[in-house]
């Protein structure tokens, strides 16, 4: 008897639940699933929330921040509708996708060096110093080279703990690209990649930009690289770096925009800026891309994706600044809009 009543209750609960689930999918909105880089994740989630409102819930985009490596893997494996990566895609990866790949830069940002030294703001790191820190050659905060660049700042006698990424990262790709460009030692010892074998002694690994920022925050004496927006939102002190022209530039909208200004976007939409020219340029900037299939599952989906891209290029760029990202220059926006017609 008890078994029967239990079964009855379970059955009615199941029926009720299925009605609830069916009810929540009222007007059959188009659902787009995307996954990838953590670098632009904060601004992407803002964009997509706003986009859903603008389309009255007809197009819902769900973006999961899992790192550029995960984005590329899922895109190649066809488990998502679009991917995102700050390392774009290698030719060998593009070749694995039979439907064709359309890479579109959506936004750009500065990669900053954040640190955890209570009471010390705006640390200056010259061009020959910060690669050495990440190589593990400079191991203490009060090393002569750092002290020389920061007169008047009392640097403690603590070991430097370097925070790096534990996952495959487009941010790592951009950062190591820059370090390889300015330091031949770094290029031969570590090189550029989405995942590299760091040679520093005291290391801590963080997952995604979030984990790196969190690790820097919790580890006294830590130094690491992350996207500007993350450092800004979490009030992490960032270092002012010496750029190609020999000037110290602190991270910020002007430095980032100047660094990006001279970028020329080729046909395949992929360009990496390893060492920008200009007095006011911040030295480490990178675009971040969304990857789309040239041939999609349905024309409906393709149209929704094109609408999404258009929104990001028009409305989306307006909040880039406030969020800590660099608005795309007009010339770039034009090119991207033209290329987005390839999403069919």
């Amino acid at each position, binding site marked *: 008897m008890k078994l029967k009543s239990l079964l009855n209750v379970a059955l009615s609960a199941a029926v009720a639940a299925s009605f609830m689930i069916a009810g929540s999918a009222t007007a059959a909105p188009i*659902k787009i699933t995307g996954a990838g880089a953590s670098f632009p994740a904060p601004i992407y989630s803002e964009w997509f929330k706003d986009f859903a409102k603008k389309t009255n819930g007809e197009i819902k985009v769900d973006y999961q921040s899992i790192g550029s490596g995960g984005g590329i893997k899922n895109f190649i494996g066809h488990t998502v509708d679009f991917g995102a990566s700050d390392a774009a895609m290698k030719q060998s990866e593009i070749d694995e996708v039979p439907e064709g790949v359309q890479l579109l830069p959506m936004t750009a940002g500065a990669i900053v060096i954040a640190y955890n030294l209570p009471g010390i703001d705006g640390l200056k790191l010259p061009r020959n110093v910060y690669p050495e820190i990440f190589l593990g050659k400079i191991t203490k905060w009060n090393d002569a080279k750092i002290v020389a660049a920061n007169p008047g700042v009392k640097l403690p006698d603590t070991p430097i703990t370097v925070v790096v990424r534990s996952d495959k990262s487009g941010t790592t790709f951009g950062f190591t690209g820059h370090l390889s460009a300015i330091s031949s030692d770094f290029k031969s010892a570590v090189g550029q990649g989405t995942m590299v074998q760091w040679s520093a002694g005291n290391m801590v690994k963080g997952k995604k930009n979030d984990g790196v920022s969190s*690790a820097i925050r919790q580890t006294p004496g830590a130094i690491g690289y992350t996207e500007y927006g993350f450092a800004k939102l979490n009030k992490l002190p960032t270092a002012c770096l010496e750029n190609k022209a020999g000037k110290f530039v602190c991270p910020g909208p002007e430095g980032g925009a100047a660094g990006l200004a001279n970028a020329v976007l080729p046909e395949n939409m992929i360009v990496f800026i390893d060492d920008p020219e200009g007095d006011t340029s911040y030295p480490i900037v990178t675009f971040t891309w969304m990857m789309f299939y040239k041939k999609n599952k349905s024309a409906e989906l393709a149209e929704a994706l094109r609408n999404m891209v258009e929104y990001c290029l028009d409305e989306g760029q307006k909040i880039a600044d406030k969020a800590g990202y660099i608005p795309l220059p007009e010339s770039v926006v034009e090119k991207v809009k033209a290329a987005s017609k390839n999403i069919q």
Partner: protein
Amino acid sequence: MSQTGLEHPKLERQPMEPRALKSIILSGITIVCAITACIPLFSVLIMLFYRGGKRLTFQLFYTLPPGAFDSAGVGGFGNAILGTAFMVGIAGLISVPFGILAAIYLAELDPYSKISEIARFCAKTMTGLPSIIAGVFAYAIVVLVMGHYSAWAGGIALSLLMIPTVMLTAEEAIKMVPNPMREAAYGMGCTPAQSLIKVILPVAMPGIITGVVLAVARAAGETAPLLFTALFSESWLSPNDPTASLAVLIYNWSSSPYENLIELAWAASLILVVLVFILNILSRTIGGKIKR
């Protein structure tokens, strides 16, 4: 009392005597050890209530996760609670019939055959299966086949973890049904199926439910199987898409630098632990009824 040249031992307790002293010291150490072992539990609970409780409002149950730019105190994880409930529900729907039916065969119909021995061994092995492997397996057979992440994949991964527990506890419960009941049922002319469904299972039900509740408690807290089957989502439940769950939420936001998300992670942990504790205590109360 009187000295007779014989040393008789004092018959009162002599705490300072070496052997007794040793015993008392060891007892003291043991008490300290027992208290120390309880400290982590209390520490976890206190931290949960303190840091999670700060954020505990009804808003948590019907709002969606916040974005990075939302101000502090905004957002909730209603979709995660729903997602966990849905996926555990699917896992239960798969594992409970599976486990009970297999347990019936093992306990009742053919307990000593080779097949039963092998099946029992398989079930015991599966209890020790690392949860990440269940996730990898479900990824290979569901996500890759369906072409996208979904709640179904998450549910199937969780069911792999629930089946052995349900099966083994159900087997024990059925074995414990007193023989006179079986014999009486057969004496009435019941077929084995009828005796099972009408007599044996109802009597074994408290034991079986104990096992199911324990398995559900375990599945609700599992993260690894859901990491690459259901992924995560910031919108409401949609079974054919990536789905949020409490456990993955806690995992994702534990390494987040945003205070808001860390607070929400603590609040989610609080809700999860309270849920699991209630289920555990429930299973013990039901199980206790058998012993009467």
